[in-house]
């Protein structure tokens, strides 16, 4: 078997069997399970009892409509009219018999007003519901007092008719934009997470082999370049396995609860109706982006002597991907801004931003081609450079881990 495959399978199998991998996968599965079943979980933990609100209605006319409206808005609310004295009810509130007491009265202008008593007024939810409903009733009564026709009121409150129509025939419709936003958002976050998790894994893998000094033995049997790329793809395969497990499990769980979730998360993100071309672009940019960042990670990993130092070297990688992430989030709202356009050609950001432009705008294919071209050329250059640095770096031991070491490693791999 080819040495590339030996290193790749070794990288893959030692990690896939590792406790760390199994545990993180299980924890993520638990999180997915919790997310899908969040409603049941909340229901299980909530008491099921309704919040009882005592109401003393001195007007004798507001209680009934307020009860109806408030209970309609919030299922967990129950308004009870009480006839006991104010101080008695306040005591009952303090004894937790009632959640709160509301006293309704009419002011000088015959309009309703209320006072809300509760043990503490930090739980503003109930308070707000009642206040809003009372406000509505007040508006209704005030209008009635003013003698304005109901139809006039309705026409005032009717929402204005407003349609957005793109004149450019190829421009995306609103619906398409929403779908694109969904998948772009998912891809950007995925890219961010993958670079951080698996980039770190690659740096650590290389640093561990270096610090345990097994590296010299390895590169005396297989060329450093082969070794480096076998590592990168071994970790990639590991990532695919993990993501694959999560997607399958997630899909299975969602399929089981399809009825409940329909119209929920999936449609908001528009994943179900995403055009095939966008999915293909997503995969292409995702893979290229991974290889780019993984190559840098392997190169950086070859520079550290102890695995403890690896943490410092991850920082520039994380900064790069974070910048890309924030531009992408900004770009979701302003895809045509110069910042996004320029960034979509910069290789460290283009996997996120060119994808964003493809999804959100209608851009000519040659721009996409140029962006992919720049990305591939950068990967090749970095791979060649990385292989050189890797070759020198793995033989280099010492304290410092600055970027000066890149130069030193580069020289070590040269003839003089």
């Amino acid at each position, binding site marked *: 078997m080819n040495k590339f495959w*030996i290193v790749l399978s070794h990288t893959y199998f030692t990690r896939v069997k590792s406790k760390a991998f199994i545990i993180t996968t299980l924890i993520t599965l638990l999180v997915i399970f919790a997310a899908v079943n969040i409603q049941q979980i909340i229901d299980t933990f909530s008491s099921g009892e309704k919040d009882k609100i005592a109401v003393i209605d001195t007007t004798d006319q507001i209680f009934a409509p307020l009860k109806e409206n408030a209970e309609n808005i919030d299922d967990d609310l129950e308004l009870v009219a009480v006839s006991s004295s104010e101080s008695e009810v306040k005591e009952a509130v303090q004894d937790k018999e009632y959640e709160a007491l509301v006293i309704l009265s009419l002011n000088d202008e015959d309009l309703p007003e209320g006072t809300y008593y509760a043990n503490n007024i930090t739980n503003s939810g109930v308070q707000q519901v009642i206040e809003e409903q009372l406000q509505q009733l007040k508006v209704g009564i005030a209008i009635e007092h003013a003698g304005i026709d109901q139809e006039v009121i309705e026409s005032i409150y009717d929402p204005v008719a407003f349609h957005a129509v793109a004149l450019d025939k190829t421009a995306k419709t609103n619906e398409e934009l929403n779908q694109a936003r969904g998948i772009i958002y998912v891809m950007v976050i995925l890219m961010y997470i993958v670079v951080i998790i698996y980039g770190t894994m690659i740096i650590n893998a290389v640093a561990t*082999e270096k610090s345990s000094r097994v*590296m010299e033995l*390895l590169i*005396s*049997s297989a060329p450093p370049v082969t070794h480096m790329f076998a590592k990168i793809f071994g970790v990639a395969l590991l990532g695919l396995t993990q993501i694959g497990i999560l997607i399958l499990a997630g899909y299975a769980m969602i399929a089981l609860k399809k009825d409940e979730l329909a119209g929920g998360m999936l449609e908001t993100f528009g994943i179900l109706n995403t055009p095939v071309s966008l999915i293909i672009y997503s995969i292409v940019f995702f893979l290229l982006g991974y290889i780019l960042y993984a190559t840098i990670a392997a190169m950086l990993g070859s520079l550290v002597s102890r695995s403890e130092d690896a943490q410092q070297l991850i920082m520039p990688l994380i900064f790069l991907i974070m910048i890309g992430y924030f531009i992408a989030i900004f770009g979701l709202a302003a895809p045509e801004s110069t910042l996004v356009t320029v960034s979509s050609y910069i290789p460290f950001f283009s996997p996120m931003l060119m994808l964003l432009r493809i999804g959100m705008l209608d851009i000519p294919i040659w721009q996409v081609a140029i962006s992919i071209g720049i990305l591939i050329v950068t990967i090749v250059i970095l791979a060649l450079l990385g292989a050189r640095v890797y070759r020198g770096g793995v033989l280099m031991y010492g304290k410092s881990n600055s970027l000066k070491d890149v130069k030193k490693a580069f020289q*070590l791999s040269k003839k003089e």
Partner: protein
Amino acid sequence: MTLLLKDVTKRFGKHTAVDQLSLEIPESEMFGFLGGNGAGKTTTFRMILGLLDSTSGDITWNGEPINYDKSHLIGYLPEERGLYPKLKVREQIIYLGRLRGMKKNDIVTELEGWLERFKVPEYMDKKVEELSKGNQQKIQFISAVIHRPKLLILDEPFSGLDPINVEMLKQAVLDIKAQGTSIVFSSHQMEHVEELCEHLCILQKGKPVVYGALGEIKRSFGKKNLIIHADIPLEFLRDYPGVLHLKKVTAGCELQIENEAVSQGIFAALQGKGFIRKFDLAEPSLNDIFIEKVGAAYE
């Protein structure tokens, strides 16, 4: 299968690590590589293995340059021992063996044989980090020879081992040599080189200061050692013509003399002075030669 180094030079920036080194290492011979710290031994090994490119000069094995196509024929025990601490011995050797082009089943068979030989068969499924340093070194040695290389490079193979393990490893090295493997090894311990090597080279600041067959080197050194154990004061010999160096020991003294003939004069001078227990004319040890040659270069 001769390993040939021709005018090999390696420079790191302005520093010259190896300078115009030419060596010939014949097939199934043991070649000793000596030198102080930083003399360029490890750099030379790394160039032979192709881990570093030489600045100038050629390294060929059997007339061909060494590259990764030949890695299954080459074994390497690096000076800095390195194994995966978390892997079991079995997984470890299987991985390294496969990288040297072996099949999994053959590796396990060979590994069992080696562990048996080193009297540690129970280590098969132990993690490397659980083993003592000396035992890790046995595993490291196995990883270098598991694929029966034709060229074996051992960088300080005996350092950090107790005398019993040193003997065990020496015997293994001799057996491998008997199977036709050329072995190059470096050491700080002269007695190992003296015991095992036919040819040797002493490196000083990247240049060979002594190079050739062991016997030839000793003969051409000229100087001899003279060991005298006697009940009389021997201090006066310090100024005797032809005596280069006198070292007092409990039972008498050890002299370094210019040549054999001086010993006869001393023998005559001691006659009748008192009781002499021992009068021994000996070949210079490699240690003497090393100190003299390398020490001279330091001055």
